[in-house]
C-alpha cells in the first residue's frame, strides 16, 4: 500500500527541506525525520 507523503511530494518537485531548530545550525534534510520539530521547505529556485 502506498501512502501519500507531503515530504516526498515536495522533494520530488525539487524543493529542498531544511531542519530549523532554535539554537542549532540549519541543516538540509534528505529524508523525512519524524523527530525534527520544524521542517521548512524551500521552493524551486532559479538564477535571475
Amino acid at each position, binding site marked *: 500500500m502506498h501512502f501519500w507523503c507531503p515530504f516526498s511530494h515536495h522533494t520530488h518537485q525539487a524543493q529542498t527541506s531544511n531542519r530549523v531548530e532554535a539554537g542549532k*545550525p540549519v541543516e538540509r534534510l534528505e529524508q523525512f525525520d519524524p523527530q525534527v520539530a520544524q521542517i521548512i521547505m524551500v521552493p524551486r529556485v532559479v*538564477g535571475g
Partner: protein
Amino acid sequence: METLKLIVAGIILTIAFCVLGWQVVVSYRAWFSAKRRAGELLRAVLTPEQYCQLKRRRYIDIPSPRDQERTYRVPRDPGLVRVIEKGRETASLCLQPLEWVPYADIVVMHKLMIEADEETYLQKANRLAPLCS
C-alpha cells in the same frame, strides 16, 4: 419578449459581477493571509539581532558558514543579494523562486539556503558585478 430578454441578461450580468467580486475578495484574503504567515515565519527563523537589523536597516547580513570573511547582505525588499568579502562588496547575486511567494519568504529562503547548503546556493544564483564597486 424584448423586456424578458433584458431581464434575463440583467440577472446573468448581476450574477457574473457577484462571482467576480467574490473571487477578488477570496484572492485578496488568501494573499493577505500568506503575507501575514510569511512575516511570522521570518520572525521565527531570524535571530533577534537579525530581525532588528532587518527592521532598522532593511537588510540582514548572513555570515558564510564556509568563509569567515564573507557575508551575504540580503535585502528586505526585492533586489540583489550583495556579497561582501573583507568589508568590500565583490559581487551581486540574483536568485528567485519559480513560483510567487511573499517577499518575507524570499528572505527566509536566502537565509536557509546560505546556511544549509551554500555551495548549491552559489551554483544556482546568477552572479553579477557588484552594484557599488
